[in-house]
């Protein structure tokens, strides 16, 4: 049996009458990267706060290593590392002091914490910055130092709340690599994100969370399998083509297919059964519609997410940009 480090049963959080987190059930396996993927306000941060001891569950149970810690998360905090969505380090301390201070909160002795702080600064390319005040850091540097502060006590499970939101592409890439290598050296990771590609690239298993509920949970390839049952072929036509020009006849002939208008003269044909491209091509040819391009679209996690949650990809994208500002 695979060992789980964290298990959650019927975890619920109500703010007055508002159900922010609604009976979550999931477990995180040892050494995996587990992703919580959902739009703004889905309840991701609230869940992390309950798991780490900043919020009290309204009901439900939290187990670490098989032991019930619901009523006293404080006792589990020693093995937990936390990187919150917003920085919570000290502006008036420099990078090195911040790391040492965080280590001291876990009772680590002076020589040991200084040794660890120096190593982490080196590992995160912050050795020079370590001597500067935290408030002078760029966003990317701040995030990196916050991660370093979250792992200085060598936790066995690390909670990362939107680790790459609001920072540039290069820093985000660096951070993803850091997360990967942390995981490879034995740290279990629980992360939230609303970047679908990030979840796809990093996580072993993902839970889709919307409006406080887990809609779907599974390993990436299992989630993809669902979507792969459906083939998507995208056609780009020459000139302006209206759906009405061929829709009726098309659906008569290919009754298992679904047609979607993507943009101007780009259409998608979705089908659960395989159709050969030639018969589709000749259909359009017979209607005098010239096909400029036809391509088979590999379903991405994004497709899966959109299909399962009913949330349009544009919504997630808009939120990403909104967040950045």
């Amino acid at each position, binding site marked *: 049996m695979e060992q789980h480090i964290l298990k959650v049963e019927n975890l619920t959080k109500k703010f007055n009458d508002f159900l922010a987190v609604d009976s979550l059930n999931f477990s995180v396996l040892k050494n995996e990267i587990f992703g919580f993927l959902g739009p703004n306000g889905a309840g991701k941060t609230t869940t992390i706060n309950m798991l*780490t*001891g*900043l*919020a*009290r569950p309204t009901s439900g149970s939290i187990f670490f290593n098989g032991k019930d810690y619901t009523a006293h998360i*404080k*006792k589990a*905090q*020693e093995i*937990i590392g*936390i990187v*919150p969505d*917003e*920085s*919570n*380090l*000290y*502006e*008036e*301390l420099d990078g090195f002091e911040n790391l040492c*201070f*965080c280590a*001291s*909160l*876990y*009772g*680590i*002795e002076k020589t040991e914490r200084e040794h660890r702080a120096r190593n982490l600064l080196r590992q995160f390319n912050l050795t020079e910055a370590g001597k500067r005040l935290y408030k002078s850091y760029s966003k990317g540097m701040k995030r990196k130092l916050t991660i370093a*502060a979250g792992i200085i006590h060598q936790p066995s499970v690390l909670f990362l709340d939107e680790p790459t939101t609001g920072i540039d592409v290069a820093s985000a890439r660096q951070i993803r690599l850091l997360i990967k290598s942390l995981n490879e050296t034995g740290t279990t990771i629980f992360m939230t994100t609303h970047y679908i590609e990030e979840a796809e690239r990093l996580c072993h298993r993902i839970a889709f969370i919307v409006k406080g509920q887990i809609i779907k949970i599974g390993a990436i390839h299992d989630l993809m399998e669902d979507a792969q049952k459906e083939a998507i072929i995208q056609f780009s036509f020459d000139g302006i083509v209206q759906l009405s020009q061929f829709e009726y006849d098309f659906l008569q002939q290919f009754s298992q297919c679904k047609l979607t208008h993507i943009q101007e003269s780009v259409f998608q044909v979705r089908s659960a059964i395989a159709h050969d491209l030639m018969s589709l091509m000749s259909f359009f040819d017979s209607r005098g519609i010239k096909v400029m391009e036809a391509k088979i679209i590999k379903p991405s996690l994004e497709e899966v997410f959109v299909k399962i949650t009913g949330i349009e990809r544009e919504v997630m994208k808009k939120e990403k940009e909104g967040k950045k500002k």
Partner: protein
Amino acid sequence: MKTAIAFWNIMLKDFRNYYLKPPNISWGIIFPFAWMLMFFLKSQTPVDVRAILPGIMAMSILFGTTSLLSVTITFERRSRSFDRLLLSPISLTWLMLAKTLGAILFGIVNAFVPVLIALFFVNLPHINWVIVFMSVIFIAITSTFLGLFIAVSVSEVFEAQTFSNFFRFPMVFLCGLFIPLGQLPVYVRLLSYFIPLTYGADLLKTAINQDGHITVPISFSILIIFSIVLFLFSKRNIQHKWIY
């Protein structure tokens, strides 16, 4: 051992970050000094220095400690760094003691600034220094916990400051330092007995000028009760409001 390391470093950081910063140090010295000077110039007799010493000591502690807590707690809460403390395995009680011990020590040092200044001008014989020292410690503890109570009851730094003045100024006037308790109207005097500073000031008066009204053990016991109640109330507030 682990708790001890965390405790010590939380306190040390506050000292380095806040208490030992020039504005705080100068405030700690200038405030008592200004009061001393004001009374001294007004009266110009050495006897009066001794008479006003308890009042200035008590006020220095009160103002010194309560204003610190709005920074070390309310400000850190605003900037979310207090969350980091709540997320670490140190228990809430130890954490709050670590956050307040620095302010208590600062208040104690503050109290002796006017004493040192007074020693420049006059001799101070016949003073029960043991009771002075004990009183200073207990006034510092009670005022710090009052500051803690205020700091955890509000969410903005300016609120903490406004709110603490709301407590501090009436306390100064009602505690018997400027207007002797006997001269206050009866119902106002009743209010005085609900103010911890009344007992602290009375202790200092007894120790320095032998003219206190309340017996020493009673004053100490009441200060201890005030401290415990304020501390527990603040702890409850953090538990219910900050761990939501």
